[in-house]
């Protein structure tokens, strides 16, 4: 295991137990993240992005079952980790920012309570009541908030979540995540619920803080534009698999997978022929997923083999992978 590799997901498959069967949400997912990198996972709502990262933290819901694959965080196999190893990851090594800042914060506790609790746990002490310890927690919290460009951190620490605006709440969440040094930060659609005017600020904050602290970043988003701004590498995800992965510039210049191409063309441009029609069809039924490639029903370039087998990932160029029969991948398929 290379020392620079922070996260390695191999062939991950996750299903959800529901009334009537299993929702086979994530299938054969591969992902690599090296130290200091910033990558994005781009995909439409419901494609399994959040489920995948939840596996990294071990916070999959009760109904979730990991069918296959492995998730390695540094030298720890997350799926078979001991409680202590898992606690170590959660407290010291990785942090996550959720999509909705309003529901991420407990409404009946002050910001200070919540931030200091997390800092306390990260500093491996828990909230002991010695004065010195509490003032250390307080100082760390204040510093975290001001790193996140929050004005008047002391006042904010005394406030309740409902007294802050959505953008400020998200900054609090970001501050919490990077209050103590971490190897990995996962930001799950951090700007989706915010005003457009704030989105840019928050994104830049995430990008800059991660860079300052040397933290690797996984940004989850449904917007290619956001991914382009922030990430060095982009994973395009569809219905539970990574269909294409490449460096940002290269992906935008020469997208390979039909889905990627359609995504790019559906983004309205100032120059060009106006707004495209989008992509017809919907995500597959996870309860009875198609046998072959999951994008086949919607794919403009579909071939007979696509409906029978699922394509394997092929390395088309350095750091540019695609899972599509148009580019090979005719060997034995993934599950």
């Amino acid at each position, binding site marked *: 295991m290379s020392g620079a590799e922070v996260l390695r997901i191999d062939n991950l498959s996750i299903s959800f137990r529901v009334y009537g069967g299993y929702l086979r949400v994530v299938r054969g997912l591969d992902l690599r993240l090296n130290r200091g990198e910033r990558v994005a996972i781009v995909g439409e709502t419901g494609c399994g992005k959040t489920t995948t990262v939840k596996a990294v933290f071990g916070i999959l819901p009760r109904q979730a079952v990991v069918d296959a694959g492995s998730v390695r965080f540094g030298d720890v196999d997350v799926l078979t980790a001991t409680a202590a190893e898992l606690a170590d990851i959660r407290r010291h090594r990785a942090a996550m920012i959720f999509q909705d800042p309003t529901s991420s914060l407990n*409404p*009946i506790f002050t910001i200070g309570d919540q931030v200091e609790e997390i800092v306390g746990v990260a500093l491996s002490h828990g909230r002991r009541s010695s004065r010195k310890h509490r003032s250390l927690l307080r100082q760390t919290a204040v510093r975290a908030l001001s790193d996140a460009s929050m004005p008047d951190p002391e006042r904010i620490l005394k406030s309740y979540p409902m007294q802050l605006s959505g953008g400020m709440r998200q900054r609090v969440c970001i501050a919490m995540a990077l209050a103590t040094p971490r190897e990995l930060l996962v930001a799950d659609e951090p700007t989706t619920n915010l005003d457009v005017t704030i989105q840019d600020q928050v994104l830049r904050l995430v990008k800059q803080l991660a860079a300052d602290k040397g933290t690797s970043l996984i940004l989850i988003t449904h917007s290619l534009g956001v991914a382009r701004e922030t990430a060095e590498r982009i994973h395009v995800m569809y219905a539970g698999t990574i269909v294409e992965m490449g460096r940002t510039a290269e992906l935008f210049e020469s997208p390979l997978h039909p889905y990627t191409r359609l995504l790019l063309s559906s983004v309205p441009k100032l120059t060009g022929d106006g707004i495209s029609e989008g992509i017809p069809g919907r995500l597959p039924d996870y309860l009875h997923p198609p046998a072959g490639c999951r994008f086949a029903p919607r794919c403009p370039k579909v071939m007979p083999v696509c409906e029978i087998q699922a394509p394997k990932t092929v390395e088309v160029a350095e750091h540019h992978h695609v899972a599509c029969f148009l580019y090979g991948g005719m060997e034995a398929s993934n599950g």
Partner: protein
Amino acid sequence: MGVFILKRLGLAMFVLVGLSILIFIIARVIPGDPARTALGPHAPEYAAQNLREQMHLAKPIYAQYALWVKGVVTGGDFGMSLLTRRPVQEDIKELFPATLELVGLAAVFMALGGVILGVLAARSRGTWVDSLVRVISYLGIATPSFVWLIMFVLLFGYVWPIFPTGGRLSGGFALPPHITGMVTVDSLVTANFATFWNGLLHLVLPAIALALAGLSQAARITRSSMVDNMDKDYIALETAYGLSQRRIFSKYLLKISLIPTVSILALDIASLFAWAFICETIVSYPGLSRYGMQAILNKDLNAVVGTVMVLGAVFVLTTIVVDIVVAMLDPRIRLSRRAA
């Protein structure tokens, strides 16, 4: 916070005044002659006439009300009880602590039992424990407290005589010196443990019978509240940051889940006084509720009005206390009022 309390108190005063008017009207607007009813058919007419004058029955109703209010406010004078021939306020002062004791114990059972059961059900949701708690709570709500009490007295008073079957203290025990009027408290304070124990024994069966309905409701609300909150994002986030499950549960989940429970407990505690009317009568427990029951059955108007007013005041007070507790637990309520 202070403003909040003041506003609630002001509202309470308004409600109490309205309540007094309502009760007064109901008590006075009856067919028949209260004076004659009190004295019986054989008393001489002049005695009845005297009583009528004493009760101001000839005056218009608003004058009667004004006189009554004056009596209450200046001296706590609710008039004379026709049954006990004593001032009603004396009776109330003497009997209220007994009912308070009983209801207090029932409230403790209700709160503790309800929360514990609800938490248990939430943590083991989907398992047989959860279903068992559900069944218990359905039965608890559907069965009236007097049915439980009859059963308990039969089973634990007669069949297996563990508990005494009536009264407040067994013969041979004297009331402890009157500090609060409550047997358990007074005897503990004066280190009279035998009396304390005996008094407690007399309270247990009716207290449990009274508590079961509210306990069941509290259990269900606690369970559903916890289950709802368990799946919230902020709880998942705390897990993702590595907080121990115990910490999350005891601090962050519990506090927010108890908010609806506290609200419902208030109503149930207030209604305990009402159901005590029947339960105290069954076990001949000398409390205010039994007094009220007797007053009702014998049309002892002053006593009825006095008792209902006291109960109404207790109810209003309980709601204020609960509103304050909820506001302390939930800053959203405090803050949105200020904003509004």
